[in-house]
């Protein structure tokens, strides 16, 4: 319980820090009015717009208003579209979650079985294949892979759509492109953990009982791998949620990443703040959950 409380408090502190940082960082980049209004607009129109958007107030006053708003669940309005930020975010959240979960599923479905097998039979052809894949995952930039996938599977073969979010088929390419980096990491981790566990006493006992490789892997190995895997999986999911800016842009995937990209280009400060805060909440929340899960799986952690 005490662990839960202190971890939660730490998370809140982290969130407040993120909020302050984002607010002041975006304001270092210049004046949004310069990009919002047409070039012909005169000084009087600029001032009127500035007032209408509340940008004429001192920074600290703007921050105070923003902070109070956030406490009440009000994330402000976009300078560009003049829609409520929360509305814009919630509209796009399902797409981002879908993409992140799709990529996550791709990682788990490929990394777990492949990593287990590779770890159980080191040096085999399968192991070398897995290592090659893991290496590729860590060195191939995901936006480049995304373009290649579009050229191969959409333009060349015509199997899958090249962009957009229109049903399950359109999820395949962006999910693979986004998950490929994580696949490498997860594959290596599963493989290494399996390799280490191979010589552990409990496995030797299980093997001595006459268990086959499949039940060995599923009943004995996997539960023991769970602890490191859960913590890495938490990190990966966070990365997938926040790191999809490029992939969403390339695949015209209507999620938060693409929205953040345009918001930054347009100097749409309130929207940049809102999205970053939202993603930070998600990341910190996920981290908290994975820490708590970790403690529950391995009670020793709470007492350290």
């Amino acid at each position, binding site marked *: 319980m005490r662990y839960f409380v202190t971890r939660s408090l730490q998370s809140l502190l982290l969130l407040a820090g993120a909020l302050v940082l984002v607010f002041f960082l975006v304001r270092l980049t210049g004046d949004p009015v310069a990009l919002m209004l047409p070039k012909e607009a005169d000084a009087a129109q600029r001032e009127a717009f500035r007032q209408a958007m509340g940008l004429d107030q001192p920074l600290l006053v703007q921050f105070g208003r923003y902070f109070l708003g956030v406490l009440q669940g009000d994330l402000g309005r976009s300078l560009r579209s003049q829609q409520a930020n929360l509305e814009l975010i919630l509209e796009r959240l399902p797409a981002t979650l879908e993409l992140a979960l799709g990529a996550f599923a791709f990682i788990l479905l490929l990394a777990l079985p492949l990593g287990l097998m590779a770890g159980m039979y080191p040096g085999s052809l399968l192991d070398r294949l897995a290592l090659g894949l893991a290496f590729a995952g860590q060195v191939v930039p995901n936006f480049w892979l995304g373009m290649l996938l579009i050229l191969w599977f959409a*333009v060349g073969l015509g199997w899958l759509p090249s962009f957009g979010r229109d049903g399950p088929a359109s999820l395949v390419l962006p999910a693979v492109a986004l998950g490929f980096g994580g696949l490498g990491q997860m594959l290596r981790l599963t493989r290494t953990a399996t390799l280490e566990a191979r010589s552990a006493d409990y496995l030797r006992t299980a093997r001595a009982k006459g268990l086959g490789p499949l039940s060995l892997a599923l009943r004995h190995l996997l539960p023991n791998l769970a602890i490191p895997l859960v913590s890495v999986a938490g990190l990966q999911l966070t990365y997938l949620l926040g790191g999809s800016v490029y992939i969403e842009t*390339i695949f015209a995937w209507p999620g938060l990443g693409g929205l953040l990209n345009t918001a930054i280009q347009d100097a749409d400060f309130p929207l940049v703040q809102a999205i970053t805060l939202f993603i930070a909440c998600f990341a910190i929340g996920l981290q908290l959950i994975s820490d708590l899960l970790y403690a529950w799986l391995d009670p020793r952690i709470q007492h350290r």
Partner: protein
Amino acid sequence: MRLVLLLTLLWAWALAQSPSGQLTVALANDPKSLFMPRAADRTASNVAVQIYNTLVAVNDQGQIVPELATRWSISPDGKEYTFTLRSGVRFHNGEEFNAQSVVATWESGQDKSNDYAGNYSLVKEVRVQNPTTVTLVLDKPNALFLNILANFWALVPPAYIKQVGLDGFAARPVGTGPFRFVSRSADRIVLEANPSYWERGLPKVQRVVFRVIPDATTRVAAVRTGEIDIANRLTPDLVAQLQGNNRVRVVSYPNDRVYYLAFKNVEAGKGTPLENRQVRQALNLAINRPGIVKAIFNNQARLVAGFVLPGNLGYDEGLKPYPYDPEQAKKLLAAAGFEKGFSISMGCPTDAYVNINEVCLSIQRDLAKVGVDVSLEFKTSTAYWSKPRYGAVGAMYVDSWSSTVGEALPRLQGALTPGAYYNTWEDEELAKLIEQIGATTDRAARAALYRQLQKRMYDDPPFVYLYQPVIFEAVSARVQDYRPRSAEEYFLKSVSVR
């Protein structure tokens, strides 16, 4: 029997006339707003124009033609415009179009939260004479007023806009135009043919779907797979992939935009060699613009001789772009007393335009060859344009200015009228000439003034005129009658699909 045949033919003819098929158009960014006074990017206005009508319109030849006003008259002092309105036109929601719609358009357009509020507030009074006659009153003559009406005054239904407010209206816009709004989500906007559109036989497609695809490479891929019909804002290297593809054709046209190196004679430019005319001429000769166009733009840009471009009113064909002549440049610099050259600062908006960093570096290199030592200041666009008079971006700076009205006046006013937000070159004679152009409503007289101005801006250049970009689009072979204009505008009502 004959009757049956006739009826069948008639039926087939009617079928051929009614709108059919779907047109899918890629958008390079999510449109800002579909409410015209807030549609401050080309993507947004290109979607919005399909929904509305204006009092007058600009046709493909750049002439002003009637739209919802059937005729109009201008008072001798150029301040009062009286329009006779088309009757029998209805908005998509059933409201009748009349003089009150003009009032509602004027009132809602001026709201301070609108980007283009200034294009509505320039009208001081709207006088409703009767339901089909209305007079707009300006406080001073404005040569571009009809263009402004054609570009911005998208007529709105008074009862509906009052009921839902501006934000509500922007979310579900209603007009009298060829297409009516169906839906908008994060990645697409759907419009469908207005069944009771007043222009007979239009529109030709039943449905238009705009898809937001920010990445140019993906837009090209999607037009190759047939998922979209029109992709714009492409680069020359991307359209090169499409050569030999018989399902896609490439459309290219020069954009009504000038890139230029602006000199300052205020703030950071005050007291510098730039104030000397011979120095400015020398810099025009010293920059290898043909080289920039060839090496950086693969010849897909045009050299220009001034701010008035081919196709603009009053364009002077006789003026040729300054040649690349570093020897002559050195002579001029020597004659001006700078045979040893000088040092100067220059701003460059690093993320704003295609290849702009390469252009800035190339200018720096060229000027070094004639002894002018340039210190470059790269800034992001938000920082670059955040100060009036570009206080922070050096004694000269790279910039660009487009025009959507078929004339150079907006960019001339913006860059050279004292008091304009981005004016950094003060020249009384030029300013007077520009003011005169702005107040001259007669086109022929205006054209003559433009010629006079070009000569003056050529001989005593306030800028180095760099180049005019070329726009590339990829269009599916099934699309007919698609005619984009030089300001990247398109009207889809006469487009059909096979």
